[in-house]
């Protein structure tokens, strides 16, 4: 070993590492933009996803704020402001909510946890050097980028066209053609097969199709990695729950996404060739589109939430300093949700004229899927019970997740009941419900995971006070924004309307105010991260005292993740880690370290799948 030690960077035993080790990590392994764009390193691909996904989140978020601001007035706000006519203002609203929904769903929520956190931590948790197919992993990112830019180009162009034409009197169509979509993120027929939107439907669905490939290939990669790359000592039921969550997510990704792909292809064929599968004027059935769409998109809801469950399981256990409660139940409930998630799509169509029997069956399975979800919540609470809870930023987000997911889940029961759904269908109640689940839960889990693994990703600490302030702002802002929408929806305010009767004004006003708080909180969190990157101190290898394998390497990890060959043990047994106040992190007690023979696996052959 080199005798020159660099102060600050320590290994898992709390000892300073050699200069060579300290200066060589995945961030410094290559220089220049091409070393990133052509990298096969899962960690760098994860970071590239982080930058791009967050950028699109910003775009989607800005449109959310725009929508909420427009809803401050019961009349078309842009028309009142004299910026454009009423029709143009309403069109602007319609295109904006489509862009907001589509960007948030396809470009942010679906890839957020699997593609950013999953890519980064999955091989580390497996003690592996990379995912099973690194080149495919990079290809996924390019698919994501290609699809996203396609998507944004088309949707954004339409909105710019609209503003330029109606506010400034400049017709942009001769310059760059039509664009814009007002079908909502679901591309429902007959909206999407209806009047000509200048090829926007075809272009946007083609973008979503390409994005689907990104999702499929990532899922495939994770499945192969989890099957084949588990280290010695890590049987299926010794995997961190994050891996179970990613595994069940991946199953949905590879089984559901192809159905969306063919649906979108048929929609494109419908528009280009007029094949008449979905268009009633050509003999098709628009409800078939809904069936196809939700056969993907309901499981896709679980693509959004299952990885969140994984993150929360990790955070709750590590930050409660207590072994996870009911490991097997949490693991199996992930799989149960993945399978049941394929059988509930019809609950989106209770009012689409499906048969009463079908409605009742879908309603029943929908109620049933609450069971595995509740199992998770109870196990998390039981994990926290009696634990030494550390109210760090990840833990605040994780506890916020439980709160929001519970509200989101319980209101889902209202919507899963046939009778109440007739009243609540397509109202703000639905909007509030799915925002609680998709935004509240997934976003909170994403932020919990980001703060939890941030030190591992960049080797730097962030301002704990700043992060916690942001967490509270986001939590309060989110609840103000959406809890009032339950009321508005129950009183009959329909979703996707640009204008509304005056009596709903107070709810819209409160909701908009809440969304401003939420926005401030999110920007605050972003500021904390940027501050950390610029001014953050070097952190210990294991700042939280976790025992899953990603904490068994330096922060940030070296290019090939580990300096040796890690061995899987119980990821939730924290007994050997002891807090070192000097390092502000946890170290492994050498005397408790297992003997060399135990640590070095004699056989490197993969575990049986």
């Amino acid at each position: 070993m080199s005798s020159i030690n660099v102060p600050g960077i320590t290994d898992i035993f709390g000892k300073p590492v050699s200069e060579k080790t300290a200066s060589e990590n995945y961030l410094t392994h290559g220089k220049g933009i091409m070393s990133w764009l052509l990298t096969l390193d899962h960690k760098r691909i994860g970071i590239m996803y982080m930058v791009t996904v967050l950028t699109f989140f910003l775009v989607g978020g800005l449109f959310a704020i725009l929508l909420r601001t427009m809803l401050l007035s019961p009349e078309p706000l842009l028309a009142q402001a004299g910026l454009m006519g009423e029709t143009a203002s309403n069109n602007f609203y319609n295109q904006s909510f489509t862009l907001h929904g589509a960007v948030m769903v396809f470009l942010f929520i679906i890839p957020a946890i699997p593609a950013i956190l999953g890519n980064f931590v999955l091989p580390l948790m497996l003690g592996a050097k990379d995912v099973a197919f690194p080149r495919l992993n990079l290809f996924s990112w390019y698919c994501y980028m290609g699809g996203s830019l396609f998507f944004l180009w088309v949707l954004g162009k339409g909105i710019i066209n609209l503003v330029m034409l109606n506010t400034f009197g400049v017709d942009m169509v001769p310059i760059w053609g039509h664009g814009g979509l007002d079908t909502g993120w679901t591309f429902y027929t007959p909206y999407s097969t209806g009047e000509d939107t200048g090829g926007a439907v075809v272009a946007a669905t083609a973008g979503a199709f390409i994005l689907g490939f990104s999702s499929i290939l990532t899922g495939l990669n994770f499945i192969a990695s989890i099957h084949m790359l588990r280290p010695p000592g890590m049987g299926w039921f010794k995997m961190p729950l994050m891996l179970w969550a990613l595994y069940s997510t991946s199953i949905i990704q590879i089984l559901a996404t192809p159905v969306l792909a063919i649906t979108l292809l048929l929609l494109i064929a419908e528009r280009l060739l007029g094949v008449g599968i979905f268009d009633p004027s050509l003999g098709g059935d628009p409800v078939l589109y809904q069936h196809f769409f939700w056969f993907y998109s309901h499981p896709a809801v679980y693509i959004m939430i299952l990885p969140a469950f994984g993150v929360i399981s990790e955070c709750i256990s590590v930050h409660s300093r207590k072994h996870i409660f009911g490991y097997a139940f949490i693991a199996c409930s992930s799989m149960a949700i993945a399978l049941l998630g394929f059988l509930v799509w019809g609950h989106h169509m209770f009012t689409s004229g499906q048969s009463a029997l079908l409605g009742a069956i879908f309603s029943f399975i929908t109620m049933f899927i609450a069971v595995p979800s509740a199992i998770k919540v109870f196990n998390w609470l039981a994990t926290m019970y009696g634990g030494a809870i550390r109210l760090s930023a990840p833990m605040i987000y994780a506890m916020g997740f439980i709160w929001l997911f519970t509200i989101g889940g319980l209101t889902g029961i209202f919507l899963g009941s046939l009778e109440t759904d007739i009243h609540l269908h397509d109202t703000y109640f639905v909007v509030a419900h799915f925002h609680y689940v998709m935004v509240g839960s997934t976003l909170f889990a994403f932020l919990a995971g980001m703060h939890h693994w941030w030190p591992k990703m960049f080797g730097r600490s962030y301002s704990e006070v700043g992060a916690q302030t942001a967490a509270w702002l986001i939590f309060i802002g989110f609840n103000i924004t959406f809890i009032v929408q339950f009321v508005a929806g129950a009183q009959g305010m329909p979703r996707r309307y640009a204008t509304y009767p005056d009596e709903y004004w107070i709810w819209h006003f409160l909701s908009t105010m809440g969304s401003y708080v939420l926005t401030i909180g999110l920007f605050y969190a972003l500021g904390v991260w940027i501050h950390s990157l610029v001014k953050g101190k070097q952190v210990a290898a294991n700042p939280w005292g976790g025992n899953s394998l990603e904490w068994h390497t330096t922060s940030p990890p070296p290019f090939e993740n580990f300096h040796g060959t890690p061995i899987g043990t119980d990821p939730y047994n924290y007994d050997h880690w002891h807090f070192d106040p000097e390092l502000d992190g946890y170290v492994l007690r050498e005397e408790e370290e297992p003997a060399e023979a135990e640590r070095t696996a004699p056989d490197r052959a993969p575990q049986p799948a």
Partner: protein
Amino acid sequence: MTTATSHPAPDGHDDHGGHHSPHLAHHFYTMTQQVGSAKLGMWAFLATEILMFGGLFCAYAVYRALHPEVFLFGHYFLDTNLGAINTAVLLLSSFTMAWGVRAAQLGQTTLLVTLLALTFLGGVGFMGIKYVEYTSKFDHGLGPAQGIYYNVTTEYSDGNTAQVKRYLVPNSAFIIAGEGDIKYGVGEPTSDQLHQLDDALHYHEKYALKSHADEGLHKDHAKAESGKGDEHAEDHSDSQATPAFSGEADPHEHLVDQSFTPTGAMVTSAVTDTRPPEHSAMALATNGSFGLSDTFEKSGIATTSVSSAALEVGFYEPTLWDTLTEREQSLAYQFFSIYYCMTGLHGLHVLIGMGLIAWVAVRALGGAFGPEYNTPVDLVGLYWHLVDLIWIFLFPLLYLIH
């Protein structure tokens, strides 16, 4: 439990206790692990392919269940022989592919390249036949999605008018008129089907059938050729006065003859017709035991063509144009839409498979594969078998409908 810090591996390529194949990627420990991952990944990918086609099969099932007559009607336009040959070609190429994988495992490079070339040729043959099929369909006006109709008002010389809908009807050799509306049909029924016609006769009382090439098909042709549409219309009302099914048919000049080559044609379907009933519809013989084919024979129409139409009419009530709702009428092309979507997507997969086979063959020429390393051949083989398998389902579902 922990990282083995005593196991320093600056570049990560330390020896794990065995020699490394040059094909072993840095993040795998053994070839077994690498090959296993690759195979698992491929199988998972094939699962996604199946689900993707699953969407199409689902659309097929839904529409066939809803409108079996449309599918039965449509499938007569497909050439079963060509489909069967294509099935054989693909099965054969799957065989050469499987043999090729074996050759790769045994390191028989020459044999491997030969077999891959044969497999590739199988793909070429399949796509060639598909090209022939598609071309003939397009030539007959059977492209995807041509069930678009529009309304035309025809004014007859006697002052009566007819509001007609025009459909681009596939391959019409004749038209059947009933209650002022017009049906179409075509195909070459087998003798079995001709026998089954007897069962269809319960329709006789309800619907008038008329071989009616003049009103739709020939009228349009004639209009296009000479612009003498009115004259034909007049002709047509005269000819309709003759009960074609009474056994004393007047085989007038516009009827289809045996030499008529079926092509896609415009067919008109009357929506409103101000002419007297006897002008717009034919009386039909009510003799229940009297085979339709006989009727048509007596009226001098190409028997085989007409019979299959009658078969359609007989077995499936909705095939009768006027019993269909507008929506159902426009469904006539659903079959072809689904046919093109399914075979088109499958054809795309064949092309991708051919590209992969060519790539593997080029690598095999360079001696890349042997007992130690043959994963690409294996995986491409799996893909090719899937493409084959999907066709095995497509063929009966599209070509062999009963």
